[in-house]
């Protein structure tokens, strides 16, 4: 598969939490292209791709949902009030074009507006508006939109430079692509593990998707793929840089013996990696999976990403390749 093509197609697909089905179907189509896989979509809408193999049961999780918008109230003319699905910085959405899915399936278009600064007072000009101060100006399809309709960023993904790729929803479609690429690389092995590639729903909605799939599968090991902040200094934390390989999470939600195994494998096959100390919780699906159904050993692998939860997130293609290489060896060797 051509990584950038799949990444482009998944970034362009729209699927806020609870409405991931378009993304799920795209991933399903991609996954079906590989041999020795079985696909299943469960009652909540999670996609589970089973890859045959003999040995331990390893489940890999990547959430498919993205942040989004919800129309909440019609004001006069074509103005609408809205709320967000997942945490969005109001600064990052002002003057953004939003695509809205109406109930009849057609699209509507709007722009996030605020009162023009010229007309604001000295005081309010100094403040960042909250969601209560913003509105969506529906300029196309205003007669078709309804309360409850879903909106998404309308940004088109593109290759920023040779290795850097940008677009919306790379949190966490970059992990979805990594898992698909891992599936491809697994064809070079006869894996010593039975692996389940889980493309789960609703991470931004408190992880019911990952929890329920973990409950159903009860794997011997769960590996969660998500994104982390890259190329930005965080006090007391080691640097995480794009292009320097996957960041391996460490902390109480991580199984230490598997962590050591993964780390030494990375060293022996020369996959460069970075460290991500997590503290008490990781803020990812890992936290809930660890304490599901009698306890499940967990690992968290994060791909570095810039500008999280904004319309243009940035990732490095090399990180996808290297993460997939590490994972394919790890699964092929049965989690050793």
């Amino acid at each position: 598969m051509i990584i950038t093509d799949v990444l482009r197609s998944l970034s362009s697909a729209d699927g806020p939490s609870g409405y991931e089905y378009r993304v799920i179907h795209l991933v399903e189509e991609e996954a079906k292209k590989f041999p020795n896989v079985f696909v299943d979509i469960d009652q909540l809408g999670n996609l589970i791709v089973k890859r045959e193999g003999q040995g331990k049961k390893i489940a890999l999780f990547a959430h498919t949902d993205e942040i989004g918008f919800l129309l909440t109230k019609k004001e006069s003319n074509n103005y609408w009030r809205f709320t967000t699905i997942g945490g969005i910085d109001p600064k990052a959405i002002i003057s953004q074009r939003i695509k809205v899915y109406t109930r009849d399936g057609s699209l509507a278009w709007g722009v996030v507006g605020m009162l023009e600064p010229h007309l604001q007072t000295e005081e309010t000009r100094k403040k960042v508006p909250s969601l209560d101060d913003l509105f969506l100006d529906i300029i196309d399809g205003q007669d078709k939109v309804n309360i409850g309709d879903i909106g998404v960023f309308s940004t088109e993904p593109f290759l920023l430079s040779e290795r850097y790729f940008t677009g919306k929803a790379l949190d966490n479609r970059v992990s979805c692509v990594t898992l698909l690429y891992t599936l491809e690389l697994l064809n070079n092995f006869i894996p010593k593990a039975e692996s389940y590639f889980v493309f789960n729903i609703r991470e931004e909605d408190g992880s019911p998707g990952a929890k329920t799939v973990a409950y159903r599968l009860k794997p011997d090991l769960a590996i969660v793929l998500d994104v982390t902040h890259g190329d930005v200094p965080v006090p007391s934390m080691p640097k995480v840089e794009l292009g320097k390989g996957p960041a391996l999470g460490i902390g109480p939600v991580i199984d230490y013996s598997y962590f050591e195994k993964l780390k030494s494998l990375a060293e022996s096959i020369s996959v460069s990696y970075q460290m991500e100390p997590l503290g008490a919780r990781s803020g990812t699906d890992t936290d809930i999976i660890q304490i599901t159904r009698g306890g499940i050993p967990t690992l968290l692998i994060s791909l570095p990403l810039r500008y999280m939860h904004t319309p243009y997130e940035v990732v490095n293609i090399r990180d996808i390749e290297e993460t997939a290489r590490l994972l394919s060896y790890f699964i092929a060797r049965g989690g050793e």
Partner: protein
Amino acid sequence: MKDLIRKLTEVNSPSGRESKIREVILNELRNFIDGYEIDKLGNLIVWKNGRSDKKVLLDAHIDEIGVVSSFIDDKGFIRIEAIGGISAYNLIGSRIVFPDSGIEGVVGIEGETPQDVQKNLKELNFDKIFVDIGAKNREEAERLVPIGTFGVYSAGFIDLGKRIISKAMDDRIGCAVLIETIKMSNPYYKLYGAFSVQEEMGLVGASVVAFNIKPDFAVALDVTAWSDTPKGYKRMSIELGKGPAIKIKDNASISDRSIVEKLRSIAEKNSIPYQIEILIFGGTDAAAIQRTSAGIPSGTLSIPCRYVHSPHEMIDIEDAENAVKLLKALVEEEE
């Protein structure tokens, strides 16, 4: 239906002390169900067989917010802690009843100077209020309301015609809707009604209620906030009397898309008025049911309610009646 709502709201059963309301509900339903169970946490689960093996779970919580006595001083004044999301502001000027003994008291506020009182009112919390049950001294108060005694608002049922007001409308109105639905329906699905405990403490009862049933889908019935009063929430559009509200999202969960669509199309087919709800805070039992074991598609049908968590919660009776119609159609309709 008003009589039933009155009967249910007049029972005093805060979170963790639900035995009275459970009994009232069970007596109400005994002749209309094929079986029931009271589980280990005290949830009442009733069922009615259907023509299909498929199962639907409808849930309403039976607890209400309240207070609990935590300290008694020498003069017999009682300090309290909150049970569930009860605001000290709503307690000022309210009466509290401690149902174990039936003792009533009024809530007072501290303040040694008028400025003090103003300041306390501005930054009100449970440290600054107390309950006065008219006791002579500590001994008398301790006998009547020992530490650890649960209490609720003492506030009556008021019938304004189309609108009704009461305490504990959250979520006795959901209970009333569920009771009526069970009584009136001839279900296609095997219908489970869950009357769950300790919702106000963080969805305690609902976390376990679906575990053994494993329904094919579930709908929680609860109240939702409103935006149709002066300077009401500007980002919400819920109005009393415009029909039950089909929830898209609140702070705790996003409703399953298929359930939203199912409720919506049934309402439209049967010409039942409905509203679409996005609550920008809060949560319902659906969040807990959804993540039970391998996952249960879940949604919420809400009754719009003004002044939620105050002693005087107001609903529109037609919204409740339309909720019953909608749910009846939901459980009776073949797929």
